[in-house]
């Protein structure tokens, strides 16, 4: 299966699970589909699904924990648990909750949900790797709205000070937060300059361009002094027309008619290729 097909399959699965279980944040899961694909299927992350605690694995922390729908669909596709388990998402008896929990779900590095926690946690993992002279890399996916949290910038300063060259922050820069556009709430611009001024290397990329993402994310395992921030310009709700760029679809379940439209659009996207 091509990486494009994998991405499309992930989007279909996100929609399918959402409709079946009536749980999940769809907008910010769809926007990150290419990021998940690049990390798990584009040769970026080193991991062993049959040995999730493998000490040499690269670590991925989902700081925007509300996008667990996307993460779980990805982890299932990568073999950490079965695809059928996804159908239990957020339902009684399931270990797959609305936000990911470490120690309960194979492949989940951090229990997240409250914003501004996963990123500093990832900094701690990167520091441990550096202290122990290990060559694993730490990738952390943040929401753009999440970057309004002060703890994100505490962690950014600290990572630069400690020269955590093994740390990559990926911002799902879809320009929307729960209630509106970021520019209308608390704007982050100039966003790249902010990260640079905090001592980070910054790369801006079309977050739906798989080739570009893979190139940028595959940093060398050694020799880097600065942490890297990848500002991935994305579209919230990507792939389903009526969800794209609509704050309403931050967290919402499609009705029957909306579901049919979404399925038809994702099917058509497959035929176009």
């Amino acid at each position, binding site marked *: 299966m091509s990486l494009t097909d994998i991405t499309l399959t992930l989007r279909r699965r996100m929609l399918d699970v959402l409709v079946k279980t009536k749980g999940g944040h769809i907008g910010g899961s769809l926007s990150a589909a290419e990021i998940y694909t690049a990390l798990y299927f584009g040769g970026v992350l080193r991991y062993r699904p049959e040995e999730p605690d493998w000490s040499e694995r690269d670590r991925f922390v989902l700081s925007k924990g509300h996008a667990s729908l996307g993460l779980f669909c990805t982890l299932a596709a990568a073999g950490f648990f079965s695809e059928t388990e996804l159908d239990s998402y957020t339902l009684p008896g399931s270990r797959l909750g609305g936000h990911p*929990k470490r120690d309960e779900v194979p492949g989940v590095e951090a229990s997240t949900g409250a914003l501004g926690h996963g990123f500093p946690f990832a900094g701690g993992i990167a520091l*441990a790797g550096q202290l122990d002279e290990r060559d694993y890399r730490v990738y952390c996916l943040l929401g753009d709205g999440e970057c309004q949290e002060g703890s994100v910038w505490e962690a950014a300063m600290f990572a630069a000070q400690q020269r955590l060259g093994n740390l990559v922050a990926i911002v799902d820069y879809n320009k929307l937060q729960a209630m509106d556009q970021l520019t209308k709430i608390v704007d982050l611009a100039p966003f790249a300059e902010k990260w640079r001024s905090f001592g980070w290397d910054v790369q801006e990329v079309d977050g739906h361009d798989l080739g570009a993402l893979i190139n940028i994310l595959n940093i060398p395992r050694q020799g880097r002094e600065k942490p890297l921030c990848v500002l991935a310009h994305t579209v919230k709700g990507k792939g389903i027309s009526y969800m794209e760029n609509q704050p309403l679809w931050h967290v919402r379940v499609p009705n029957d008619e909306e579901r049919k439209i979404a399925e038809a659009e994702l099917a058509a996207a497959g035929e176009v290729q």
Partner: protein
Amino acid sequence: MRNSYLRALQELAEENRNVLACVADNGAIVYDKFREKLPRQFINFGIAEANMVSAAAGLAANGKIPFLYTIIPFLTMRAYEQIRNDVCIQKMNVKLVGIGAGVVYANLGPTHHALEDIAIMRILPGMTIFSPASPQEAYLATKAAAAHDGPVYLRLGTNKEPELFDAAHCFEIGKGVFVRDGGDITLAATGSILGDVLKAAEILSLKGISACVVNLPSIKPLDVEILSSSLRRTGAMLVVEEHSIAGGLGSSILEGLAAAGALTGAIGLMGFNDTFCQGYAEHGALKAMNGLGVKDIAERAETLLARKQR
């Protein structure tokens, strides 16, 4: 307590390179020896406690044992959600070491006092809480915190406490200990105010009242057994703490006794009663200004005794 904590921490760090001394830019020179000897195990996170706690959880997730040290309100209140989510929910082996218990930072004012920390730390599932009364006990509690796998909150005073115990003193998680015998009333305390309670017991003895004193350096888990047996024996118990009455040691004792079906006799709680600490003075005088002086403790014990005898 501070220096004995640092001594214990340095010994632990020399034995185990995963033990990390983490600070949020406090203690200007007190870490010099540690830094000189173990520079790779010392991390100054700067004045950013939220990041320090979350990052410590990430360090612990990868085998490190971080000891986070700063003034109590900055640690337990500024970074409370980080303690709850990143340390406790994830059951991380992080040690939270707060300095400045109660109103020991007396004339620095209420921003630097710690009268709510026991309450908010003890409601966190999985959190263990130690509150030593003397330098020796702080040393032992630090070692016990390291030996315990899981989150620990270590509530320290400052560096001026007198030693109350001899070299044979023991510290055991979940254990209280009688530090004075007596049969008329039980006085229970935690932290450095234990010294004041012992003085109050002396005053009472001059009046012919025999008070036993229970030291409770382990607040969670709490030694309910020693308390219930002492209460049963004396029929009266006064709990004294340099903390808010609401939610503190006294509340914890009442919960424990109630759960054990051991609520009986006359019980009194002494501490800060829905108020911040008022005024400025050195530590001892400030406690007295706020109704927590040695004399106040003795008087309150007498009142309680009268209630028991009615």
